[in-house]
């Protein structure tokens, strides 16, 4: 410390510090300020006693007030659950069509179902439920097993070709590579492709129609509009699960791929399945 220095202009002593000729005045602190300063220190000390603060070897001091931010989260979650209670109760009571018809319930179910969808369904159906090759787009108006809310609920609940669920939706398209001659497969592929677009060789259409009537119409229907009882797709529309065009159709005729969807009823519970069904139904294609 240098000796006391008095500032000429103000008559106040300085702290003795000097930077390039600039000195710091040693103005008195107001007493209330000093008191406040000590009170904040005391407050900080008391705080570490009252609340969790001091780190120990494996945890930290708990604080005498017993506060825990984890409890806060728990309480908030419980409050959120309680707030959802009346909706969940109503969803449990009502059928999915009734839920879809009720504006408030539908809004809740769509939000809840959307959240469940993001966790459980996007892996196959995509984050926008837009699907991909082999996995149906849930936004469109083409439904293999039915697009009414109850039918969607059934599909989600019990899955498709899911062996461990006895009520699962079941069907199997045979592999026609062993049954039909290669030219017959080419003919029937041309015929099916012609139902929704132009084909290269029109002469194949007529014999193809005959092959279709003998081998395919049982499931896909005489007019090839498909059949929802067995999940047989409509072959006349613009939507193709395994690709459009003659070669994609021929490949599917020779060795059909069959999608499997797990049964979600046991895993998610009825309420969540209902919410999911309402969500999927709301995407724009619901019937």
């Amino acid at each position, binding site marked *: 410390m240098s000796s006391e220095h008095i500032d000429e202009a103000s008559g*106040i002593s300085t702290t003795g510090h000097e930077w390039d000729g600039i000195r710091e005045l040693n103005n*008195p602190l107001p007493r209330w300020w000093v008191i406040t300063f000590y009170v904040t220190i005391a407050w900080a000390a008391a705080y570490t006693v009252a609340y969790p603060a001091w780190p120990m070897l494996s945890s930290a001091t708990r604080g005498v007030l017993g506060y825990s931010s984890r409890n806060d989260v728990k309480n908030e979650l419980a409050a959120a659950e309680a707030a959802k209670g009346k909706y969940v109760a109503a969803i449990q009571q009502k059928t999915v069509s009734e839920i879809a018809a009720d504006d408030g319930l539908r809004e809740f179910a769509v939000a809840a179902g959307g959240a469940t969808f993001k966790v459980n369904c996007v892996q196959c159906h995509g*984050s926008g439920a837009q699907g991909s090759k082999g996995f149906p787009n849930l936004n469109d108006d083409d439904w293999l097993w039915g697009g009414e809310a109850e039918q969607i609920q059934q599909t989600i609940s019990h899955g498709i070709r899911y062996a461990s669920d006895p009520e699962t939706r079941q069907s199997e398209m045979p592999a026609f590579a062993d049954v039909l001659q290669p030219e017959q497969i080419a003919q029937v592929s041309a015929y099916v492709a012609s139902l929704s677009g132009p084909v290269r060789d029109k002469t194949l259409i007529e014999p193809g129609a005959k092959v279709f009537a003998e081998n395919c119409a049982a499931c896909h229907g005489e007019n090839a509009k498909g059949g929802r009882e067995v999940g047989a797709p409509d072959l006349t529309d*613009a939507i193709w699960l395994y690709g459009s065009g003659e070669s994609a159709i021929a490949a599917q005729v020779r060795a059909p791929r069959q999608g499997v969807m797990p049964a979600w009823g046991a895993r998610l519970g009825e309420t969540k399945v209902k919410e999911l069904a309402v969500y999927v139904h709301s995407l724009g294609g619901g019937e």
Partner: protein
Amino acid sequence: METARLEMPVLDQTQEERLEAEAVTSATVRPPLYAARKKIFPGRASGRFRQFKWLVMAITLGIYYLGPWLRCDRGPYAPNQAVLLDLANRRFYFFSIEIWPQEFYYVAGLLMMAGIGLFMVTSMVGRAWCGYTCPQTVWVDLFLVVERAIEGDRNARIKLDAGPWTLRKILLCMTKHAVWLVIAVATGGAWIFYFADAPKLLGEIMAGTAASAAYVTIAVLTGTTYVFGGLMREQVCTYMCPWPRIQAAMLDENSLTVTYNDWRGEPRSRHTKKAVAFGQPVGDCVDCKSCMAVCPMGVDIRDGQQLACITCALCIDACDGVMAKLGRARGLISYATLADYNANMALATANGTGAVNPTLIRNSNTSFVDGVAHFDLRKILRLRTFIYLGAWSAIGLVLVYGLLTRERLELNVLHDRNPQFVTLSDGSIRNGYTVKLLNMIAEPRTIVLTMEGLAGADMSVAGVDPPAGRSFAIPVEPDRLTTIKVFVRQPADQINKPMQSFTFRIADETSSESAEYTARFNAPEIAR
């Protein structure tokens, strides 16, 4: 000097009031390291500025305490409180104006106007905000009224403070603090009424059923009002407030500030008569310390401009009173600009060559010489002032224009991005949109949503049964946002490019209000 003796009015020592007062922040006092607050006992002033301050106090406190109780009928679907900050529903009401959260720029505009207005006022009349309208000043003034009413004026209070703790002193002290607390509670209470329906909230508070936030807010504001207004007073301004520093930086040599005109006051003398008799020069200041006695900040204005001075102008009133008694011109302490002050000082000191010499600024008949600068409005109104005024009015006009022409019906559209489009079984392409209809008036109405453009397309609204069409009537709730999901479908043969534009239009057919949004319609590169 004998011949140039001033013809000063002879002072009658019996009339002259001598006051014992001392400034707490004075250049001559060496302060210790830690200092207890020195008590200030501001005396009652009377005069023009005191009158004006009473008026300002009545208006500002009146607005503050009564504001929430004003009513304004807005119909059955909106609150009828004239000034209401409805945080729960995110609506601000000010008489016939209702502000939605996205219109917060009106509030931002008001804040800009407040800022520029402050610059404008400060550039003209200095720290007028501090001296007249700052809540700290107004409430301290109010608390001083109470203190004076209960404990008496300055001398009585000093005596009481110095005296022993008698029963009377205890009673007076308790009464004073009790009244202060009542004011503090009323102040904290008035604040929360701006955030909820005042009569209902008052009932709830009395019944003990109001939200805990209400009680906490009242408690905190009661505490701050009592401590700042009753106990800390001038300490808040000198130590805690950044405003004096900022405002001081906005002054220039043409801003009016409360000034002790030492060019006519010096040399000050308590014994004018004797000094005159000995032929010494004497200024107008009789060193009566009235200015310090009425000062709520405890400053000696004769030390010149200082941070602690809030320019409340009460010293002007006090000094003018003394000058009037002495039969001298008022304005020894006055609102003056630094430029005028410097000019007059130069005159009085012969350009700084000597001490203040009263003979240099006075004629023989005691009137001032012509060279003395006096208050002149033209010096106050200068380019800087008009730039502030221009900016302030421009923002104000923009706000008023915005308010008069703003739409109370709005449309927001969010295009589904995942998936961007959906191919339907007949090959047509569908896009989804989340359409938000903002009905910003407090009446329910029916909004017609129409689509324009996009050949052959139609739309359907989720929750509304088919058939699809190009126009839907949608009922919307009063003062609410309604969200609907709209699906637009266009046949494949009408699609000629991957991205097309079309328009969503909403219209209230009864009021002819409308709004529109240009949306995009996506399709795959080759639709079939």
